[in-house]
């Protein structure tokens, strides 16, 4: 009998002793990627009888692409103002007094279906002690033009899948590329959406501040963004994926393509931006060979992601 007991104790020990836990895959991908799909009021401004509420994802402005929803309410009768012509201008002031802007929708149009004024702003930097953002908004109501402004805080975008890059193209123009979606990529073919914007150099001398002609940006039309996603870390040996699609512009003005993530981890989206004529504006071809132990070479135009 002793031997039986021995075996049973041995088996008991074997069965109960600890082993490596399986990865909780759903929780794991969730923890790396903060996700926010809810629009909340990020700031509000008041001018006379009117209150302007600006809604953004998660109720905050982040570096990179921000979809904005503006609502103008008459505080007297609580009626929403839907017919105003609204302009929106974000201005960045540096310590040296220099002022600049970022890609934005200057004329914010009313979206009757969703009942808000729809715009966007691609903040190119976070608010710091030496750099502060201010929003300049104007609208017309009762045949009167209202102009207001307010300081806002632009926070760090902790979701690397909404990263952006600003650069000078080979054509001498200033460009910004900002990732719009997916917020939360998965191991799969992800629809990749990005905005490409260009700074319109002023052709006229500056008028009274803020003169929108000095701070004008536009969506770039008809370009192609060639995509080559790779895992840059040395251990990944320049790993890439099949079935990716280059980004081209669609009717919403944004650029749409497909990025196929084969596994979770750090990825670099290597881009080559070409203009309407197929000329390279920015970007270099990256090596495609498997180079274990060597950090992957990035294109001169790239955006890092992580999930």
């Amino acid at each position, binding site marked *: 009998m002793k031997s039986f007991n021995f075996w049973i104790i041995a088996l008991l020990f074997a069965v109960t002793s600890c082993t490596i836990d399986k990865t909780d895959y759903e929780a794991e991908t969730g923890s790396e990627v903060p996700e926010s799909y809810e629009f909340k009021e990020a700031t509000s401004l008041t001018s006379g009888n009117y209150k302007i509420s600006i809604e953004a994802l998660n109720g905050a402005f982040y570096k990179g692409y921000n979809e904005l929803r503006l609502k103008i309410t008459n505080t007297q009768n609580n009626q929403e103002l839907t017919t105003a012509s609204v302009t929106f201008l974000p201005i960045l002031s540096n310590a040296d007094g220099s002022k600049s802007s970022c890609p934005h929708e200057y004329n914010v149009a009313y979206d009757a279906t969703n009942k808000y004024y729809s715009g966007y702003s691609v903040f190119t930097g976070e608010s710091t002690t030496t750099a502060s953002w201010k929003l300049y908004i104007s609208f017309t109501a009762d045949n009167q033009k209202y102009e207001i402004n307010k300081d806002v805080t632009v926070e760090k975008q902790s979701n690397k899948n909404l990263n952006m890059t600003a650069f000078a193209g080979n054509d001498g123009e200033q460009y910004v590329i900002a990732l719009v979606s997916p917020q939360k990529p998965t191991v799969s073919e992800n629809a990749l959406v990005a905005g490409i914007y260009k700074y319109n150099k002023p052709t006229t001398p500056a008028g009274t501040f803020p003169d929108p002609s000095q701070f004008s940006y536009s969506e770039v039309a008809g370009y192609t963004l060639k995509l080559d996603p790779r895992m840059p870390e040395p251990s990944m040996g320049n790993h890439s994926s099949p079935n990716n699609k280059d980004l081209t512009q669609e009717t919403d003005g944004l650029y749409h393509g497909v990025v196929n993530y084969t596994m979770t*981890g*750090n990825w670099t989206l290597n881009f080559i931006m070409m203009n309407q004529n197929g000329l390279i504006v920015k970007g270099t071809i990256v090596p495609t060979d498997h180079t*274990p*132990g060597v950090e992957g070479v990035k294109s001169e135009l790239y955006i890092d992601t992580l999930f």
Partner: protein
Amino acid sequence: MKYIIMLLFLGISVTAQNQHAHHDSIKKLEEVTVKSATKKKIETEMKMAVSVDEFLSSSDNISFIKRGAYAWEPLLNNMSTERSTVTIDGMHVFGACTDKMDPITSYVESNNLASIDIKSGQEGSLHGSTIAGSIDLKRKSTQFGLQKRWNGAYQTGFEFNNKQFFNLGNVSYSGTKFVADGSISYRTADNYSDGNNDEVKHSQYNKFNTSLGLAYKTSELSSLRLDAIFDMAKNVGYPALPMDLWLSRALITSAAYKQLFEEGLVRVVDTKVYFNTIEHYMDDTTRPENLVHMDMPGWSTTYGLVSKANLKKNDYSSEIQLNAYDNLSIAEMRMYPQDRSERTMFAYSWPWVTTRFAGLSMNNSWDISERSQINLGGSLGVNYNYSKYVEFNWIFHPGAPQEKTRFLPSLNAAYNLNIDQFNFSVGTGYGHRAPSVSEGYGYYIYNSFDRYDYIGDPNLKNEISYEGNASAGFKNERLSIQGKINYFYIQNYIIGKILSLGSPMNYQSVGVKGYTSLDYATLLNMSANVSYDILEHLHWKGTLTYARGMDDKGGNLPFIRPLSYLTSLHYMYKNFGIQTSVNGDFEQINYSPEYGEDLTGAYTIWNISADYSFKINKVKSTIQIGAENLLNEYYSTYADWGNIPRMGRNIFTSLKVNF
């Protein structure tokens, strides 16, 4: 928790049953075997204390892919384990390692096995759908009411080349109502040295195995049996791979109810439910050359049912078997840079793949005359796969279905004829198999042989085998000659092909291969065996095997054994025995560079051993000393992963005590 309770219950029932043991031995439970060609006694000609792998390799139609000194992957009819079914007493167990570092044969030990039943081709479809055949590892199971109630054996030994030290013990109790079998074993080995006396690093292993079987006679003609095997391997080196094994554990349990019938067509019905779980953790931190580390844990859990009925009436006998199982295979990849707190990547190499199989098989045999016999068999199985994280499969196969159901039919027929001292047989077979988990759903599984990352394809077609076999033999009192041949024409033969898309991921990898179907492949296996008793106590044996495998373009298939031979002499005098053997392969002319093979040269190995049996009191003992690869030849075989050299001269000693 479930099994803990079960085990506790077992413990209690053991105590209870022993007290009620009766002394009425009227009938013994005996197995009615319809047809079997089992290998009896787990020992080889040369060695009495062998590992399961060494024992299997003494069979003609088994060869091995070796990734080191441990856990060799058995190839049946020169086909890898996806194409054969390997079972333990009919129970399906699936390895938890994507790199096939843990074939099922690595989870048992020679002292808990009674025999190994090898069936070639569709004849082996009784245990589930197969192409190559089946290997069934039969556990020891003592009969009720033996005259000698307690039996036991103890083996110990030391092998000098790799300082392998092993201790194997097993004991059995046979009462009229209650039977128990237990075994325990431990093996430990250091790195071995090749024929140039160079140490082959990372070839050590440590294995612990224990098993327990309890049977209770519930009535004159029925019994209940509970079995468990626990196996643990730790710190096992795989010199041919870029990583080693830190820990693997298997718990294999079953409960069986057997009912005998004295009259009627049905003679035995044996129904078993089983559960087994395997965990397998690789470790590459032991390799300083790896700048990055990858954890690749794997888990495999199987629940199953196997129910077998033996029928017999006059000249007709039949085996009917129902197999059903549910397996969940999970394998993860997680990479770390030098700083282990940071993570580089995560992916599933088996994205939680469920396999469910249910099949009904039948083997019928008629003695149509005194000299001839017809066998007809068939099976129909349903195989269902489900990939939980199918997004990994969609990377290379967009839109592939998450679930897939396949029907797997099988048919076989054979005719045996005995005329005086001659025997002949011809047979044919047809069968399907479903792709394995790796072939169907594998994701970036690194194959260090051809250095490609492998991707599974959920849409692969069933592999379909058309098979023919024949044998002829002659036997008289002194001479026995047996020749066998079989030929397989396999449609939709699954093999890895280089993918033009995708980029490699694993550290040593050079590219990506996807499992794809060739239109067909063909395989021919031949063997000839001769044995001759030169004198009363001097026996000679010779074996010659040849195989040829080709793809649809006439190219060579990988891992096909070249012409090989084995010749041995065995001399006995009183209690003294001496045996010597020479074996080797010819040059592997038909190698396959496409699949990472290069030309492997010929080699010849000479082995010798001597044993002496004696009795101390009533204890029968045998002592053996011998040498493998006596001439210390430096060689590697066609199936040595990455051309790692085999073991050089190895002097082995062992002692076996039976009481």
